[in-house]
Structures are given as structure tokens and as C-alpha cells.
């Protein structure tokens, strides 16, 4: 009889996990966001993801601005010993990741190697196992001169850490890595803009309006957490400035070129951003970045 009870209990567990009941449409899986939003097809959205641009994407857009490499923008490697809490470590994992991408995009090989050591140290301190982080970092060292491999490996390092942290219910730590990387990318952009009128760069900064919306959604559910509460009002202020930046699109048209086998989402975009808005964005990004790295 005892065994029968346990069989019933086990059946219940398996049933509840792998064979969800039809009424269970709003169940929250592994700490992810559950929403009540009903989209056009009138089905409940069970899972909503918000992605931020990766440091690789952000630093690549900087190259298009033809701005020169500026080593003064990097967070010094020596700062790594200052970080103790998991939130500081994760934020600066993101910062150093963006620094590494920035160095690599501008072919600064020696600096890239130095930033690798900082990331490796933080990976250890965050207790991300070797097979999720450090092993891929070793591969970066072996492939340092191969640009494509480096980007692939950096992406894998991010993905490995992101996956490991989510798997271990450390979603906030995973989010901090993304936030650190995004802020560092923004920091490069706003400071490269300093003293010059570069429309490509200005547009790149204005286009981050979408990223800050995604970031606010990403951290919104954690705003009571002390680690995020420290930064939340600053991000809220940044989001408020961005909400006044105007971006409008014409109706999108999808164009397929059969010969070149490419598909393009084609439309014109209009951006209206004032000097005051740019200066507020610069001030706030510098403030947040300083708070993260110091």
C-alpha cells in the first residue's frame, strides 16, 4: 500500500511537470515572466522574452561611425579586484565583455587578451563552471587572430553564462550581464559623439530607445530587489528621456531579391532627437556606467 501511495505521488509529479493540464495556461515556468496579455489571435501569451543588443552588435555599429579607437573609454583591468558582490561581478562581466568586443572590433589584440583575463576571473568568482565559461575563454586565446572565431566564441561565452545562470535560477545575475554590456556599449557611443557631429552615431544612440524599453521590461519584475533598486531610478530616468525621442517608420515592405537570394525589410525611418535629449542621455549613461565600474 505504501508503494502504491508513492506511485500515485510520483505519477502526480510527472503529470504536473511534463503533461500539463489543459486549464494550466498561465503557469509560470522556471521563474520566467507570465503575462496576461492577449495578442491578436486571442491566445494567452505564456512566455515573453526581452533581448538586449549584444555587445558585439553594439560595438560593430560603432565601426560604421568611423570613429577612432579610444582606449580611455575602457574600464581598467585593475578594477576587477574591486568587485565582490554577484551583482557587481555580473554587471562588470558585461562591461568587460563589451570592452573585449570593442578591442577586437578595432583589432587591438593585446588589449583583447588582457580583457580575457578579467572575464576569466569574474567567471570564476561568479562560480560559473569551466565548461560553461572558462573553456570557451581558452579557445579565444587560441583563436585570437581569427576575427570570426573570436566573435563566435564571445557569443558562446555569453550564451554559456546566460544559460547556466538561468538554469540555476540566477536570472537576475544573467540580466545584470546583459545590462552591463549594454551600458558599456552606450558609454562608448555617447563619448565618441563628444565634440563631433556624426549623424550615424547620433542615430545609433537614438535607436537605443527600443533597447531601453526592452531593458525596463527585463528588470521590471526585479525592481524591489536591493541590487536592482540601486540602479532602477537611473534607468527609469533614462527611459523617460528616451520616451521623448521620436522615431517614426513608414509602412514596412518585405522585398525579396530572387537572384541575390536576399530578403530585406524595407522602409524609411525618421528620427527626431534634440541636443538637450542627447546631452541628458549622455549624462545619465555616464552616471550609470560610473556607478557600475567604481
Amino acid at each position, binding site marked *: 500500500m505504501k508503494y502504491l501511495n508513492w506511485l500515485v505521488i510520483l505519477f502526480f509529479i510527472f503529470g504536473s511537470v511534463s503533461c500539463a493540464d489543459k486549464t494550466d495556461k498561465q503557469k509560470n*515556468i522556471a521563474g520566467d515572466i507570465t503575462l496576461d496579455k492577449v495578442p491578436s489571435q486571442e491566445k494567452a501569451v505564456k512566455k515573453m522574452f526581452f*533581448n538586449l543588443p549584444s555587445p558585439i552588435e553594439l560595438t560593430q*555599429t560603432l565601426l560604421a561611425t568611423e570613429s577612432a579607437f579610444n582606449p580611455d573609454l575602457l574600464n581598467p583591468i585593475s578594477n576587477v579586484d574591486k568587485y565582490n558582490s554577484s551583482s557587481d561581478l555580473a554587471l562588470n562581466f558585461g562591461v568587460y565583455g563589451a570592452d573585449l568586443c570593442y578591442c577586437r572590433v578595432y583589432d587591438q589584440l593585446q588589449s583583447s587578451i588582457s580583457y580575457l583575463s578579467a572575464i576569466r576571473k569574474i567567471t570564476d568568482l561568479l562560480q560559473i563552471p569551466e565548461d560553461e565559461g572558462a573553456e570557451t575563454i581558452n579557445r579565444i586565446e587560441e583563436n585570437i587572430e581569427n576575427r570570426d572565431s573570436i566573435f563566435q566564441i564571445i557569443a558562446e561565452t555569453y550564451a554559456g553564462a546566460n544559460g547556466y545562470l538561468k538554469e540555476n535560477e540566477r536570472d537576475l545575475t544573467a540580466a545584470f550581464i546583459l545590462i552591463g554590456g549594454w551600458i558599456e556599449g552606450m558609454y562608448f557611443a555617447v563619448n565618441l559623439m563628444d565634440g563631433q557631429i556624426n549623424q550615424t552615431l547620433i542615430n545609433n544612440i537614438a535607436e537605443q530607445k*527600443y533597447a531601453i524599453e526592452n531593458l525596463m521590461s527585463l528588470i521590471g519584475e526585479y525592481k524591489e530587489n536591493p541590487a536592482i533598486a540601486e540602479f532602477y531610478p537611473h534607468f527609469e530616468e533614462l527611459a523617460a528621456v528616451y520616451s521623448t525621442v521620436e522615431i517614426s517608420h513608414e509602412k514596412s515592405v518585405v522585398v525579396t531579391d530572387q537572384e541575390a537570394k*536576399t530578403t530585406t525589410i524595407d522602409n524609411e525611418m525618421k528620427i527626431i532627437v534634440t541636443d538637450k535629449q542627447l546631452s541628458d542621455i549622455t549624462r545619465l549613461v555616464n552616471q550609470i556606467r560610473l556607478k557600475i565600474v567604481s
Partner: protein
Amino acid sequence: MKTISKFIILFVLLGGFQLTGFSQCKSFTKDYCKPKLHPYIYNGQLNSAVLNQGDVAELMLTFYSNQDYRIVVCAAEELGPVRFRLLDLNGQVLFTNEDHNFIEYWDFRTRATHQLMVEVSVPESVGEEKLLKSGCVSILIGFLDNQ
């Protein structure tokens, strides 16, 4: 006391199985979905969840001007053909894999920067099945190094 112990064991088991579910999802994504991104560079963000038949998941993401992207949506076989659509902020459908035999990926370039939504719908169960099937669904984004 025995009852409390049973509940504790139940709780631990339940948590363990949920974690296992996510771990399996992570392995599924790594082994089965990520190779489909090649030669695009993975954006490094893991968007995967265990979904049931009839569930919908959405991903909000910015796609930058003059970049080449690949969206990969892959799902556990038992869920059947999963539909994915790309919509702009006005709800205009830019792509649906329903028109392309439920292909698992789509490559495109954006002329202007866009905030777009990838919407993934797992098909409803058919027939008189009382229990829903569930499985891992992953949405991965890759981009090309255009330099």
C-alpha cells in the same frame, strides 16, 4: 511528521524535475537549435521554455539597420510544426513560416532599425487527448559580421 516529510520530498522532487526540464531545454537548444544559426553569430541570449500545445511565446528585439539577421525557431518534435511570425509594432505581419512549409529559420536584412516581435505558436492538441503534450521551444537570433 510523516506527512510533512512527504511534502518536503514532493517539493524537492518537483523543483528537481522543473530544473531538469530547463536543463534538457538548454541541451536541446545547444545541440539541436544552435547549429542552425551557422554561419550567423549567435546574440548569446537564451530564449527557451517548456511550452504546452496551444501556448504562445513572444520575443521583443531590436534589429539594427543594414545588418543581416537569422531567426531560428526550433521545437521538440512531439509538439508538431510550430508557427512563427515576425511582426512590427503596428501588428503588421512581415513574415510567417506558414507560407514556407513551417521552415525553422528566416534570413533577412533590415534597411532601418526596427523593434520587432517574434511570435511563436505551438499548435493546439487534436482529438480527444486529455493530457497536453509539452516540449522545449527555443528562439535564437544570429547576425552576420558585416565588416
